[in-house]
């Protein structure tokens, strides 16, 4: 194994750069080092001006998503040795405006997430908490995988539809809507469908399935989107056949 590997890192400083540039750094190639370890080596030892987000370095906080050799990855869970002998291209996630270097702007997702009402909605108006809502392990399993989303944005980076139509609400938000719809404690499916049936909702998706493929937590947003399209189609048939009050 060679003892170093070259990182080709995208740099962009809005104060001085008119467009992104590529900068090369050679970093030690060690078997336990992730791409993030390589970037931190650069930050601490070589070039203190390189900017990127990271925090937990155990694949759960969702901060450190970047495109590595063109694929969206959590850099804390992507090992340099898998790219030996290199070089490795490290770029900001695609489909987002770049703030600086490897940092992208998540405003759009953060602003739209509340629209799918990702919280428990109840028909009853329980204010006093005196016992749990029962939920069997089977009922938990029904939504469990959709609850594993860490909001890392890799699916948005991989989504060809989001790249072309930024009004598309996107895979993670739809997966979270489905997470609550499938929760036996929730009664909010109707309200969420009203949101997702709108133009920016599920219709943009063409079932490419890239979102599911790149998800580091094995969530299936493509499946969630497909289910919503079916629900939405049923609704439009009902809307056509039935007068409004009986729906």
């Amino acid at each position, binding site marked *: 194994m060679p003892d170093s590997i070259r990182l080709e890192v995208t740099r962009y400083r809005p104060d001085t750069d008119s467009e992104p540039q590529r900068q090369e750094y050679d970093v030690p190639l060690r078997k336990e080092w992730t791409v993030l370890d390589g970037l931190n080596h650069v930050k601490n030892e070589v070039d203190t001006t390189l900017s990127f987000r990271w925090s937990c370095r155990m694949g759960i906080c969702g901060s450190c998503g970047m495109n590595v050799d063109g694929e969206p990855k959590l850099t804390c869970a992507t090992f340099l040795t898998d790219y030996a002998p290199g070089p490795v291209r490290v770029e900001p996630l695609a489909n987002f405006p770049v703030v600086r270097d490897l*940092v992208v702007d998540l405003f759009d997702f953060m602003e739209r997430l509340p629209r799918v009402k990702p919280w428990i909605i109840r028909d009853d108006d329980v204010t006093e908490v005196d016992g749990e809502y029962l939920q069997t392990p089977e009922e938990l399993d029904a939504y469990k995988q959709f609850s594993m989303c860490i909001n890392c944005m890799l699916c948005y980076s991989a989504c060809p539809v989001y790249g072309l139509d930024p009004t598309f609400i996107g895979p993670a938000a739809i997966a979270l809507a489905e997470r609550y719809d499938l929760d036996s404690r929730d009664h909010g499916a109707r309200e969420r469908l009203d949101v997702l049936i709108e133009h920016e909702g599920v219709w943009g998706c063409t079932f490419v399935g890239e979102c599911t493929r790149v998800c580091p937590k094995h969530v299936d947003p493509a499946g969630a989107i497909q289910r919503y399209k079916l629900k939405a189609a049923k609704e439009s048939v009902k809307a056509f056949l039935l007068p409004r009050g009986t729906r």
Partner: protein
Amino acid sequence: MSDSLVRAAHDVLIVGGGGAGLRAAIAIAETNPQLDVAVISKVYPMRSHTVSAEGGAAGVIAADDTLDEHIYDTISGSDWLGDQDAIEAFAHEAPRELLQLEHWGCPWSRQPDGHIAVRAFGGMKKMRTWFAADKTGFHMLHTLFQTSLKYNEVTRYDEVFVTRLLVDDGRVHGAVAVGLMTGKIQAVTGKAVILCTGGCGKVFPFTTNANINTGDGMSLAYRAGAPLKDMEFVQYHPTGLPFTGILITEATRAEGGWLLNKDGYRYLQDYDLGKPSPTPELRSMELGPRDRLSQAFVHEVEKGRTSDSPWGPVVHLDLRHLGEQVIDTRLPFVRELCLKYERIDPVHELIPVRPVVHYMMGGVHTDIDGATPVAGLYAAGETACVSINGANRLGSNSLPELLVFGARAGRAAAEYASAARAAPAVIEAQAADEVRRLERDVMGREPGTERISTIRDDMQATMEEAAGIYRTGPAMAKGADALAELQQRLLKAGVADTSRSFNTELTAALELANMLDIGECILRSGLEREESRGAHQRLDFPDRDDRRFLIHHLVHRNPDETPRVAPLPVTITRWPPGERIYGR
């Protein structure tokens, strides 16, 4: 006030958007929807370190359990340094808070009949730890974050770093903060401020803590005139992965995992923690408290009974006998982490582990409602020290703590803010001072030869040397001198990055200044405590000394910026100091 300097005025300003901060925000919105609440956080809330908690959250719910038992376990776990009135309130309110999370959608693991499932945990005499497989903190944080989105009265400032609290005449009035996207420095006023910034594990080199855990709230409070309490008590978790320091949850041992030395021997039986049995016994062996287990590791190293790794001595955690099904349903994240970061499968292989800095028992001194001695300033979660954890926190008490005391601080701050007046004009001059300090003294400094990362490395090495699992007076004194030198070096280290946009070198410099404060407080408190209690073990004072040290330590900041340590009585209600007994 001029518009450019003061960005917005709120009733309550919460610094930190993790579990405690979000719980406080929701409590305020529910207590008084008229109040305008803002959450200001240096990361997006769902990136907060609550996300990394694995094992579970303790709250009495099982038919065979009682509140008094949870209280007693917590008190004995704390080596009698926890305040018993706070612990009683905590144990009483924890189950309701956990149920509230259930109603908000937290995917708690269940029994076949649909009721909440509980598991065993270290130092707990009954099964009372609620869990969401082994991603409990992740699910709690996302549940709180998503639920918080339905409250329109909560404003969020994401990726905004607070550099100073605005205090006049003993009252807090807001904060000055840098917006990371733009680099803009502005004041945000609040009639009350709640600090919920989490822990400070990054003071040490080897920690389970995330990059963001730099003790910002502790340092903000300390500089604003609020004392820090019990800072000498730093928890080493006995089972971290070598190199990364990634946490392998105590739930592995609750499910029946064994700790083995290099001879395959369950060495804990040699340290007054009970006798080995094939299935886990509560408050015994691998289910002993974290302080005692981490200390046992050090003795195994001394006896030459640990294995060598490139990252120092290790022991092994054996889960093989649990079988694939138990591991996949109860500990799936542990398997994922081991496969990813150690390239081993715990279904078939031993996991190398060693003690790792995990949690700060100390923090901002608060009363039982989260209030600090500075009027209007509150703290909750790991940032705060109420104290329920005393000299050693029990696993699975920190998650319910951030709920119980996040909600309490929220309600108390809401009440205070309802009666408080708007910020006085003098605050603007303070804000202008802070802008000048940041622009001239930090940003404007010529980059010298010294790097922030070098000083940080030296600080971490100093703290590991001086304030590890076993300590001595001379080592702590030497460490304190070294930190003083590092303070001076930091004043000379420049920030090479001149960009305003997302300048992480600037944040790192400010975080390092915070951590140097905290390191100093840890060592000064540790020097004063001439006894061994819980996580503070002194080779030169090996015994617990209730006559002199059944007290908390408050560290105040003198006008000349040096620390001053003062005693505070421990509150004892029904449980007089006794022997900590495990496994017998």
